[in-house]
């Protein structure tokens, strides 16, 4: 029996959280996958018509035969998880404090079609660096929230949960956790949220690190296209807008319509989540069809993420975040006003498989306050997920200078 307590006192409380999936939910999921009705095979030999039948059928087979359907639950419950209500929505987060006293607090935000699952393998290197080739000075206290409408966070029942509102919620979360001096990191939607936190100049935020240049969506036409690298990035963005943008536009305009399929059919959900960018698609497809995963993008890790979306029933609510961000972006463009600059130091890492591999000139144009830039030689859009060690080294390097400042001030 639930007992209603005084709302104001209760709302800001931080409560431990434990994943518990009823067995019926697991059985129902298995039954649905097993009784999938498949379409005919695509007419091409590549991904140009979407997720290929062979890859998805192999994923479905793996899902119900080889995969441990309770794996997600076990992985998450091995970590300290919490929920707290912020701005009317229950926010789920993982919070791992380093044993090193001077660890730098870091809030790291996942993207779409991801979840906290993307970031799990970075927890060790970031919070316990000495066990992962680093020094105590590399340690972070790590906060990994689930975006509103994603995973075990609540689904907003009202309008307005765009990246700006999430960014304010994250500042409140860090405040609530007692962190007065912290940094933030993100890729994909997480990059948009983290960028926005920077522009909001939240009190206590001393630096950000990003691995996707989201501003290209708004100001891509204005960025330089002189060097070979700039032209390659511009071409990659043009290709994305031409043929890789469909999921984005559909979710930004009709999230509810696509939600019916992704809530009712596990295989529909899996296909929708797999059909992101070309680089990650082929890496994931290879993992299933050829049994050759790239980096940490293993079959289990991929299926963990899809299973989390299914069990939380968040296919529609996550898509809705694009509707919100799409509206916010359109309003910002229509206003004709440039957003405020990011006043804190910005670090950026370009991973080679990213949808558009941002050249330094582009990153500098967007962030005049760029203090760290590096191009690494492996990893793609899901950098933290695919290359957690390399990614963690980048996060350490990007924020290293901020630790010194912290100590001297």
């Amino acid at each position, binding site marked *: 029996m639930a007992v209603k307590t005084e709302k104001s006192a209760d709302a800001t409380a931080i409560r431990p959280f434990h994943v518990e999936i009823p067995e019926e939910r697991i059985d129902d999921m298995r039954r649905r996958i097993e009784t999938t009705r498949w*379409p005919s095979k695509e007419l*091409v030999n590549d991904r140009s018509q979407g997720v290929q039948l062979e890859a998805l059928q192999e994923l479905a087979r793996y899902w119900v035969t080889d995969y441990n359907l309770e794996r997600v639950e076990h992985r998450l419950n091995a970590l300290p998880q919490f929920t707290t209500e912020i701005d009317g929505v229950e926010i789920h987060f993982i919070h791992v404090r380093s044993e090193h006293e001077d660890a730098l607090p870091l809030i790291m935000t996942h993207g779409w079609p991801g979840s906290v699952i993307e970031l799990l393998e970075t927890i060790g290197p970031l919070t316990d660096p000495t066990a992962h080739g680093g020094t105590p000075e590399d340690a972070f206290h790590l906060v990994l929230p689930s975006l509103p409408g994603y995973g075990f966070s609540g*689904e907003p029942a009202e309008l307005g949960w765009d990246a700006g509102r999430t960014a304010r919620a994250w500042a409140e979360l860090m405040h609530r956790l007692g962190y007065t001096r912290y940094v933030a990191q993100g890729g994909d939607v997480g990059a948009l949220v983290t960028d926005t936190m920077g522009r909001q100049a939240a009190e206590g935020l001393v630096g950000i690190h990003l691995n996707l240049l989201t501003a290209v969506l708004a100001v891509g036409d204005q960025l330089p296209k002189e060097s070979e690298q700039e032209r390659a990035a511009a071409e990659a963005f043009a290709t994305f807008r031409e043929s890789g*943008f469909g999921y984005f536009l559909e979710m930004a305009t009709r999230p*509810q319509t696509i939600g*019916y*399929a992704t809530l009712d059919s596990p295989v529909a959900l899996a296909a929708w989540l797999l059909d992101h960018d070309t680089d990650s698609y082929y890496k994931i497809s290879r993992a299933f069809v050829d049994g050759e995963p790239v980096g940490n993008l293993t079959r289990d890790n991929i299926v963990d993420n899809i299973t989390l979306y299914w069990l939380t029933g968040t296919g529609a609510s996550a898509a809705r975040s694009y509707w919100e961000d799409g509206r916010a972006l359109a309003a910002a463009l229509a206003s004709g006003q440039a957003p405020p600059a990011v006043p804190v130091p910005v670090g950026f890492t370009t991973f080679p498989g990213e949808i558009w591999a941002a050249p330094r000139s582009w990153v500098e144009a967007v962030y005049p306050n760029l203090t760290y830039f590096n191009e690494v030689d492996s990893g793609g859009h899901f950098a933290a997920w695919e290359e957690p060690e390399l990614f963690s080294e980048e996060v350490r390097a990007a924020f290293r200078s901020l630790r010194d400042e912290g100590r001297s001030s």
Partner: protein
Amino acid sequence: MSTTVETGIEIRPFHVDISDEALEALRRRIAATQWPEKETVADQSQGVQLATIQKLARYWATEYDWRTCEAKLNALPQFISEIDGLDIHFIHVRSRHEDALPLIVNHGWPGSIIEQLKIIDPLTDPTAHGASASDAFDVVIPSMPGYGFSGKPAGTGWGPERMGRAWAELMKRLGYTSYVAQGGDWGAFVVDQMGLQAPAGLLAIHTNMPATVPPDVDKALLAGDPPPSGLSAEEGRAYEQLVRTFKQVEYARFMASRPQTLYGIADSPVGLAAWLLDHNDADGQPAAAVTSALDRTTSARGELTRDEILDNITLYWLTNTGISASRLYWEYKGGFFNAKGVSIPVAVSVFPGEQYQAPRSWAEEAYPKLIHYNELDKGGHFAAWEEPELFVSEVRTGFQSLR
């Protein structure tokens, strides 16, 4: 039983025969639907609303009767003939009137032959419907490749151009040496292509989604620019309507780039229904004509009803053609409403609920041999389905000069 006509090419009679198991499985899946939460807006701006589709699903799983639709289809002469390597399903109703004009009518997406069932009687038997024997048509209604009971292409290339050639072959095979063609939505693309191909025997086309946009206007539209100067009031209105339309076609863009990713429309009846319902017309997305039909259980003069909406969706489900039909968008790389350069005679009907109201000035320029132009005061994107009487009278008058 098959018949082989003189040409040696087989035209086989076809009969719809859906198993009880398939219908039971459909009902079971609908009943077991796992729903998303309600949209966060009070209108249709995030897609098909939860209350709308839950109400439809309830009726679909409990009261709707596919067998009625099946009987309606089986009361019509249906055939299958292999053309260009693919089985093409079609309805073929000959008029009893000697001089009937042969007419091939092409449906669109998210439609099927179900859209055209109400126009068959008045077109083939005009004297029973207030018109004269000289208004009679022999009617051929094919299912597009990948749609309904036609085969699903196993290779690429079945766009409107190839369909146009297949329809010419079909008419030839049926022994028609002189005929006309009609289409809306994708059917309009196909008849435009037929007009360009101008196969022997094709006298004229009638379109209810004319492609008339002049090149400079089309360029401005695609670039998202303001309209070129010098447009008349009517043309300016058309421009605004096209701007609105292009904001409501993300479903089309998605199918044009990633049709295979829509696994949910093969696996989930409700996923399919939502996807098919979410096509716009001038008055809304989903189309106002379809939304209002969902509340209509009986029809006095052919107005679209809930059962017809479900007949169409159920046909897609039972034939598992959600994705194969979507691939048509992927196949087509050409322009949308731009003038295509059709030089044979063309009849145009402009329905107020269509994506845009093609101005007469544009229609005259796009179709130099314009034999008919009329603006109607009701009916929309699914004209034959929504306003069968009006539609039939447009087809009659549109082609009158050719008899």
